[in-house]
C-alpha cells in the first residue's frame, strides 16, 4: 500500500509542476515525472512477492514469475514518453527562437 501512495505522490508532484510552473522546460520536466510515475505504477501492480523475472532459464522450472503483461505495456509507454518529450522539446526550441524566452507568462499572444 505505501508503495502505491508514494507512486501517486510522485504523480502529483509532476502534476503540480505542470499546473503551476511558468517555464516551458519545467513543464516538460513535469510531464516526464508524470510519465515515470505511471510507468512505475504499472510495474508495481504486476509485482509478485519474492517473484522472479519473466525470463525462462534452460534447466530450471520457475514457478513464481512476476506478471509479464504490465512490463510489456510499460515498454510501449516508455517509448511514447520519449516521443512526446522529443516533440515538445522541438516545439520549445522553436518557441525560444520566435519569442526569445521560455517564460509562458511572456508568451501570450493568444487570448484565453
Amino acid at each position, binding site marked *: 500500500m505505501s508503495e502505491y501512495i508514494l507512486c501517486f505522490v510522485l504523480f502529483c508532484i509532476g502534476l503540480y509542476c*505542470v499546473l503551476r510552473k511558468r517555464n*516551458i522546460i519545467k513543464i516538460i520536466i513535469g510531464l516526464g515525472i*508524470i*510519465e515515470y510515475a505511471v510507468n512505475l505504477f504499472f510495474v508495481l501492480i504486476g509485482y509478485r512477492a519474492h517473484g522472479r523475472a519473466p525470463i525462462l532459464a534452460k534447466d530450471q522450472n520457475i514457478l513464481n514469475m512476476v506478471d509479464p503483461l504490465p512490463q510489456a505495456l510499460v515498454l510501449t509507454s516508455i517509448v511514447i514518453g520519449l516521443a512526446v518529450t522529443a*516533440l*515538445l522539446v522541438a516545439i520549445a526550441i522553436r518557441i525560444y527562437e520566435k519569442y526569445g524566452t521560455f517564460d509562458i507568462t511572456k508568451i501570450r499572444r*493568444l487570448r484565453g
Partner: protein
Amino acid sequence: MMLPFFVIIPLGTAFLISLFGKKIKNLSDILANLGTLSLLIFSLYSISQVATQKILVYKVGGWIPPIGICMVLDGLTSFMLVTVNLVSFLVTLYSINYMERYTDKYRFYTLFMLMLAGMNGIIITGDLFNLFVFLEIASIASYALVAFGTEAEELEASFKYAVMGSVASSFILLGIALLYSYTSTLNMADISQVLSGKPPGQMVNFVAVLFLAGFGLKAALVPFHAWLPDAHPSAPAPISAMLSGVFIKTLGVYALCRVFFNILTVSSRLLFVLIVFGMISMVVGAFLAIAQTDIKRMFAYSSISQIGYIIFALGIGTPLAFFGALFHLFNHAVFKSLLFLNSGAIEYSTNTRNLNRLGGLSRSLPVTGYTSLLGSMAISGIPPLGGFWSKLIIIIAAIQAGYFVSALVAILISILTLAYYLKFLKFTFFGKINEARQNIREVPGLMKLSMIFLGIICVISGLLIVPLFKPFLQSAVNVLLLGNGYKDAVFGMLR
C-alpha cells in the same frame, strides 16, 4: 477479414509517402486521396456487414481475445468509421489545392494519414490498452499538425495543446493501470465481464472520474476546454476541419461512450455529471463565440458548444436521447468541417480571417458563400436541414426525461447559435466590399468540389431519420443501449 485494413491502409500510405513523397512530385496527392477513398468504400461496405451479421470480431494474430488483441465491428463502430472516413476523404480532396500554400506538402500528408490511422485504430479496437496506443498516435500527429505553419502563434497553441493532451493521456493510462490491477485483463469485453462479477466499490467510480477527466480533456468539455480555441484555429484549414469535425468526437465522445456505457456501465450519478458538463459547455461555448472577431476562433468556440449538446444528450441516457446524440454527432461532423473549409477558402482568397476586415464577398466567392449559408443554417437548426432534426430530437428527449430547464436552455442556446452565425454571414458575405478586394477570384476547382459535396450532405442528412436509412443510426444506438450486454455479444461471436 477486412477489419485490419482500416489501419493498414493509412499506415502503409503514410510510410510510402514519407519514403517517396519528396522525390516524385504528385505522388503524395494521389496516394493520400486513393487511400482515403478506399477507406470510405470499405467503411460503407462495413454498414452492410453490420446489417447482416450484427457484430464481427477479428482476432489479431489468431490469438483468442483475452490473450491477444481483438478488433470489433458493431453498429457504433461502423457509424463512426463512415463519419470519420467521409470527412477525411473530402478533406484530402480539398487539401490538394489548399496545401500549395505550405512548404513540404508530403510531410503534411504523412502526418494526416498517421492521424487517420490513429482514429480508425481507436474506433475498431476491442482492447483498452490498444485504444490508448492509437489515441497517442492520433494525438501526437495532431500536435505536430497544429504547428504545421511554424508561425509563433501556431507553435504556442501547439505547445499548450500538447501539454494538456499529454496530461489527459496520462490520466487515461492511470485509469487503465488501475483497471488492469482490479480485473487483471485488458480486453474490453473481458473487463466488463469481470466487473459485473465484483461487488460495487469505490474503484470503478475513481476510474470513471479519471477517464472522464482524460477523455473530457480530449473532447474539450468546458472546465478542460482551454486548448481548443487556440489549437483549432492555428492549424491549416483542412486540419481544423478534421480536428473540429471528427477528431474530438473520436478521441473524446466515442471513447467516452465505449468506456462508460459498454465497459464500466456507470451509475446514474455519473451520467448526471455528464449532463452538467454538457450544459456548461453548451452555454459557455456559445457566449464566448459571440464575442469573437476571428472566424476560425468563433467556429472553435461553437464546436465546444455543440459538443456540449452531444454530451448532454448522452447524459440523459434514454434511447431517444442516444439517437439524438449520435445524429447530432454526424451532423456536426459534416457542417463543422464544411464551415472550417469555408473559412479556409476565405483565407485562401483574401489572406485574412478578421471579420471586421471582410465584407461583400458573396459576389466574388459564390460557391463559398452559398455553402457557408447552408452550413450556418444547418448548425443553427433551420428546419429542412439535418441540424434541425438532431437538435429537435435532443430537446424532445430532454423534455421526455423531465429535464425541462435544460431543454429550455438548449433552445435558447440554439437561438444564440443562429445569432452568431448570422453575424459571421453578415460581416463576411454581405455589406460593402473592400476596394482592394474587387478582383479576387473564386478558389480552385477541387476545393469547390469538396465544399459542394459537404453542402449536399448537409441538406440530405435529415434523411437519416427516414425509415429507409434509419437502421444505420439505429444499429449504433442499439450498441449504446446494449450496455453490459456488449460482452455477451463479443463472446458470443467467439464461441
